[in-house]
């Protein structure tokens, strides 16, 4: 009998080889860093000093592909409210206060409620989900998210039979965010069955720690079979509706960004080929998979639909 004991080390906790090989170098540098860090530590208010590590359990839904480096995941971001250059969000998103934070769940539900972020963190067991992320700009990453299924939250509020769609409204504060790029607040939407799908995640962390602001702190959506822009960041309202909600990029350029925006190498886009993608950290492009490689789990959601029409 073959006894296969799962590894008790989270994949994201395994030190990447490149880092391991530079460990002495790291030690030398962290000596100076510690002194500076200690000085900074004492200047921080209590809340910010709390540990940023999150306890989570591995998930069977994770991919085993090699992770994209943490540095890339946290410095190469599209979060246009903080600037349109990929490096802008990491520079500017610290201005956003992520505590206190509440998420209003409303609309066609039996028990509408306002949740505090700390409540949400305890709502369901946190899982580590390693997902492929495919951006509509033809680059991709493999990201170890920490979160829980959106379905767990939706069940709490008891969706009514008339609810067909879920709208997500994200944080917008013109005092700290830029104006006039697209129409803000940024909104996104899913069909209710997409929202209830076990792959659909509400992420609160990445790489075993709470989300950095530029990655959508304190709570973001992750829908791994759709282009990245569907995975709304820094969510403040979740609203169940009967009609298909308007979504930010679709309002801006409807011929380019559809409501569904499933990863689909066969649907052409006027700017980027969707047939191939560059995995961040790799030189050569690779073919893009239908539904970003999640076809087995999600293709049935779209049975009988013309995906060229509902792009």
């Amino acid at each position: 009998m073959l006894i296969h004991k799962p590894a008790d080390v989270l994949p994201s906790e395994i030190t990447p080889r490149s880092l391991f090989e530079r460990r002495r170098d790291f030690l030398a540098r962290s000596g100076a860093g510690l002194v500076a860090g200690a000085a900074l530590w004492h200047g921080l208010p209590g809340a910010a000093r709390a540990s940023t590590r999150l306890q989570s359990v591995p998930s069977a839904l994770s991919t085993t592909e090699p992770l994209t480096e943490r540095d890339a995941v946290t410095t190469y971001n599209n979060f246009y409210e903080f600037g349109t250059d990929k490096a802008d969000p990491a520079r500017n998103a610290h201005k956003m206060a992520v505590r206190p934070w509440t998420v209003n769940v409303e609309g066609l539900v039996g028990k509408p409620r306002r949740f505090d972020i700390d409540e949400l963190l305890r709502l369901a067991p946190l899982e580590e989900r390693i997902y492929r992320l495919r951006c509509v700009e033809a680059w991709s990453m493999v990201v170890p998210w920490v979160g829980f299924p959106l379905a767990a939250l939706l069940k709490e509020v008891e969706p009514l039979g008339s609810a067909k769609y879920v709208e997500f409204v994200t944080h917008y504060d013109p005092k700290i965010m830029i104006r006039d790029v697209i129409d803000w607040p940024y909104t996104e939407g899913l069909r209710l069955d997409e929202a209830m799908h076990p792959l659909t995640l509400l992420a609160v962390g990445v790489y075993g720690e709470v989300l950095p602001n530029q990655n959508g702190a304190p709570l973001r959506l992750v829908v791994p079979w759709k282009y990245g822009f569907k995975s709304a960041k820094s969510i403040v309202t979740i609203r169940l509706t009967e009609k298909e909600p308007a979504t930010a990029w679709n309002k801006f350029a409807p011929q380019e960004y559809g409501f569904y925006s499933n990863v689909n190498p066969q649907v052409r886009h006027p700017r980027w080929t969707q047939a191939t993608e560059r995995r961040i950290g790799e030189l050569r492009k690779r073919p893009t998979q239908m539904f970003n490689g999640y076809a087995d789990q999600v293709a049935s959601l779209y049975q009988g639909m013309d995906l060229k029409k509902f792009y």
Partner: protein
Amino acid sequence: MNLSLKAPSAGTIAAVKAVVFVLCLLPALELALGWQANTLGANPIETITRASGEWALRLLLITLAVTPLRRFSGLHWLLRLRRMLGLFAFAYAFGHFTIYLWLDQFFDWNAIALDILDRPFITVGFAAFVLLIPLAATSNSFAIRRLGGRRWQALHRSVYAIAIFAVLHFWWLVKADIGRPLLYASILAVLLGLRGWWRELERRRQLSVPPPAKHLEKKVIRLVPRQ
């Protein structure tokens, strides 16, 4: 040392040329060093593609600024920098195109052909690059003599269309934030607008000058502006 700004010595011009030459090389050097040191961000191929393309556009606009600068300042020797600036614009465009073919597409000719036919921003960018080739090839004294000044000048006027294509290439690439393309478009509009205005002034001047010939007095003469 006689530093006459209006009429610098041959040595001074050579020194200025050398400085401009080195300045034009700096962005390429910075990118090459960044590539070596892996400091070009999470997507270095995107970084060098963007940077080389933007420098090609900047140098093209700088090249187009030589004539207005010369006219406003009276520093006619500036003209002697124009060929080098134009050739550097071509060099960056060539680098930009090579990075696209090689690092971005890895010589996937099907994907490249589809890009050129199917994506408007690539179509105009490709057109701009192809049209630059004959200009770069004839940027030497031999070609000017061979073609004759007039034909050479007619050929090189295509640089106005190339600059428009290059700005469109950038404009159609961006998703939503048109700030930078708009800046370049405005600069180009001023540079082209000045030429249009000068041409109009020249036309009016020609119309207002009375014909010198006595035997034509009291006859109706139609003046056709030179194309």
